[in-house]
């Protein structure tokens, strides 16, 4: 029930409100707009029975939930005799002064000069700045006349966003609207007389909010109608960071604009991404802007005539794809040999770094059967190259404990195996959680417990789930034809086949997959690196999907494949990706980066335009034949087991800093131990000084 004539009246316009309403009503909710509650009736026991509405109608109900807005808390001002607004709020002028010029009011108790009360923190900060300048008598051109109330939120799971002049109040402005009521999508852009983007409303699909909002106030680089079309209907894939205006915020964590990133390169002479990060702080928060940041920095460097070093890191001037070719063709089986023969001059015979070591380890591992290296990640030199997760075949968690994920192919598991997981978790006091990939994560194991836990799991028939590696993670599935009345193929069997085929495959980044038994797509296959959806004639293969921070729907690569065709095509696709992708580049980013995009990949893996397919298939055949369970191998080898101790000089002693406290009937890390008193730091110089005294 909403008092306003439409849902979210402030954020969206009429069209958006209607789209929103339809979607919400499709969920089975009845929406009443333009009415208020008048009276709640209760039975003899005081329990609610009905609610009367302002339009005279009434709803039978036994529960009423109120969702009230904010009201300015202005009692103090009233008691002091300051002017307050008709509907509350301490009236202030553009300088945030109340009716008594010696008193200021800011934040959500104030009624700003534009007649609005701002309940958000950002306008509050702005008002604080104005007030501080005012008190300090600093001259400032503009006061507080209103704030940007752009928002992006979810209402019952529906994306809703509005930005800038969403209601088109500017003189002479015009609308560009795209509406698809079947899909519940409504998008409107407000375009000024000069062609500049002034604002907009997005309902049902707000993915372009991040791109559109920074464009506000400027003339967009493409026609506005292209900006509202859904992907695939002539919309540009996304406008790259180079097309954004200088005011566009690239790093949201630290509020860094494109302009300041560019000036870091031009004015502050930053020549690398790390330098720009240090200088601007951009990219040092969640890291999700790093890709855009790197593109911008490289563009700017190139524009200023600096040749950009595309090398993997300080040790290699080659990209990952180039190193892959070097390892493959020269059959190089050790990192040291590669560094000493192909590293940068200054890096040869050094120790390498944390970037190239795992990258090269992954290349050698994925080519191991082909170049004749040991594929086992804990062998010899390989052991020294792996990130800690690969080194201990488990995932490091924040307090130094590890989590364990046994493989559960296709998400199918017998009651017996479920019981074993439960018993192991109980006996070792592990926290258990179901993962998004249809398996079970066991948290809170100490290093020295890992072999003991795995001995039990391996005995029960489990093997490593590679949750710790840049490798195939899971192939999710829905129950498919066997149980579901809509299913047209056996999606579970296919998911198990695929997971067992590609398990252990090392790749530039993690790989995820899913198989759905019909077009209803319950397994969410289109959010995966490779997703399979059943058709009545076979399978459709989608590639390049992603969830996470940068969601992307997978693109259709081929249709109506039989089992054999499907597997052959996935073999080729994966090997082509492993061969050509950059370090930590998911298939989604890879597909968008490589020249020719999806069409090129289709040419190569479907039509064999490069004559590579036989080789790609052979590489995969080598992988499948060479697969061994890493945990079973580890348990058989006392030498390898030696590293699973907390302390080298006290092999039996558990790490006293890995402790747990109860939480919701399970455990969680005891972080108080870690935060402990910080020990004063002495550097080696002071120590040596002390020793020589």
């Amino acid at each position, binding site marked *: 029930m909403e008092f306003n004539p439409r849902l979210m009246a402030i954020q969206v316009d009429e069209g958006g409100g209607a789209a929103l309403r339809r979607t919400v009503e499709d969920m089975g909710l009845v929406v009443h707009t333009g009415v208020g509650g008048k009276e709640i009736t209760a039975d003899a026991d005081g329990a609610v029975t009905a609610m009367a509405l302002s339009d005279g109608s009434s709803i039978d109900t036994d529960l009423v939930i109120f969702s009230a807005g904010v009201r300015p808390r202005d009692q103090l001002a009233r008691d002091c005799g300051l002017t307050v607004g008709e509907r509350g709020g301490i009236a202030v002028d553009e300088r945030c002064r109340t009716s008594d010029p010696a008193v200021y009011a800011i934040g959500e108790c104030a009624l700003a000069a534009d007649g609005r009360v701002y309940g958000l923190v950002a306008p509050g900060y702005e008002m604080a700045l104005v007030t501080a300048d005012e008190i300090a008598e600093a001259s400032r051109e503009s006061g507080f006349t209103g704030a940007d109330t752009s928002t992006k939120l979810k209402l019952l799971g529906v994306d809703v966003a509005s930005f800038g002049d969403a209601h088109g109040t500017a003189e002479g402005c015009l609308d560009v609207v795209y509406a698809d009521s079947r899909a519940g999508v409504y998008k409107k852009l407000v375009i000024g007389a000069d062609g500049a983007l002034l604002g907009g409303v997005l309902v049902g699909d707000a993915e372009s909010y991040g791109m559109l909002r920074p464009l506000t106030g400027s003339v967009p680089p493409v026609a506005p109608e292209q900006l509202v079309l859904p992907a695939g209907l002539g919309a540009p894939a996304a406008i790259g960071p180079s097309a954004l205006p200088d005011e566009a915020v690239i790093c949201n964590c630290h509020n860094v604009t494109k302009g300041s990133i560019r000036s870091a390169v031009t004015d502050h002479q930053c020549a690398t991404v790390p330098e720009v990060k240090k200088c601007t702080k951009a990219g040092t928060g969640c890291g999700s802007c790093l890709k855009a940041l790197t593109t911008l920095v490289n563009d700017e460097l190139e524009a200023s005539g600096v040749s950009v070093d595309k090398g993997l890191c*300080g040790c290699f001037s080659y990209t990952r794809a180039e190193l892959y070719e070097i390892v493959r063709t020269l059959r190089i089986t050790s990192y*040291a040999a590669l560094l000493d023969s192909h590293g940068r001059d*200054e*890096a040869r*015979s*050094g*120790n*390498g*770094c*944390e970037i190239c*070591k*795992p990258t090269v380890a992954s290349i050698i591992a994925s080519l191991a059967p082909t170049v004749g290296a040991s594929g086992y990640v804990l062998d010899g*030199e390989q*052991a*020294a*190259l792996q*990130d*800690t*997760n690969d*080194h*201990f075949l488990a995932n*490091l968690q*924040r*307090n*130094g404990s590890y989590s364990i994920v046994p493989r559960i192919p296709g998400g199918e598991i017998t009651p017996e195996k479920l019981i074993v997981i439960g018993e192991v978790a109980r006996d070792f006091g592990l926290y258990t959680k179901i993962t998004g990939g249809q398996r079970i994560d066991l948290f809170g194991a100490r290093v020295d417990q890992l072999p003991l836990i795995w001995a039990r799991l391996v005995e029960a028939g489990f093997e490593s789930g590679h949750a710790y590696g840049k490798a195939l993670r899971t192939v999710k599935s829905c129950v498919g034809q066997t149980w579901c009345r809509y299913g047209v193929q056996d999606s579970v069997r296919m998911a198990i086949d695929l997971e067992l085929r590609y398990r252990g495959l090392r790749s530039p980044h993690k790989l995820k997959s899913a198989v759905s038994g019909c077009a209803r797509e319950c397994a969410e296959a289109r959010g995966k690196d490779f997703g399979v959806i059943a058709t009545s004639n076979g399978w459709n293969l989608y590639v390049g999907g992603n969830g996470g921070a940068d969601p992307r729907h997978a693109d259709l690569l081929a249709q109506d494949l039989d089992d054999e065709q499907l597997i052959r095509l996935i073999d080729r696709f994966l090997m082509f990706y492993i061969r050509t992708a950059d370090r930590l580049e998911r298939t989604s980013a890879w597909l968008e980066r490589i020249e020719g995009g999806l069409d090129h990949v289709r040419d190569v893996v479907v039509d064999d335009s490069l004559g590579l397919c036989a080789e790609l298939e052979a590489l995969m055949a080598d992988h499948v034949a060479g697969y061994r369970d890493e945990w079973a191998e580890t348990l058989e080898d006392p030498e390898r087991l*030696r*590293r699973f101790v*907390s*302390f*080298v*000089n*006290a092999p039996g*002693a558990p*790490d*006293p*800093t*890995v402790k747990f406290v109860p939480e919701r009937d399970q455990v969680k890390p005891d*972080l108080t131990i*870690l*935060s*402990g008193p*910080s*020990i004063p*730091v*002495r*550097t*080696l*110089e002071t*120590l*040596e000084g*002390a*020793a020589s005294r």
Partner: protein
Amino acid sequence: MTMAPERIDVRVELLIDQRWFAVCDLSDLTPGRGVAALLPDGTQVAVFLDRTGQAYAIDNRDPFTGAYVLSRGLLGSVGERPFVASPLLKQRFDLETGRCLDDEGVAVQAYAARTQEHMGGVSAQVA
């Protein structure tokens, strides 16, 4: 009583309170990786070996997270200087000085380390 040396052990020793303290055998270390060890007072140290066979030791506690995990990081070098990258948030620490290369204000303690040959026997064990 025969005093003939049975074999030669190479031990890794740290300078603690002006004394050399053996933390482990050289064969316990893999070049490019570290191990955690306990000092007599219960302090945790991270001990590393580089490609050339040089040993290093710093505090095991990662000052950014508080977790005792630096021994599980990857070794690298910038120019001549060896470092370890924390396995949690990847900040790098100079193995000779303990200084953080990514945040000037932060450092961990570094210990002088050496490898020393001994005749026979076993390395010191701390319970």
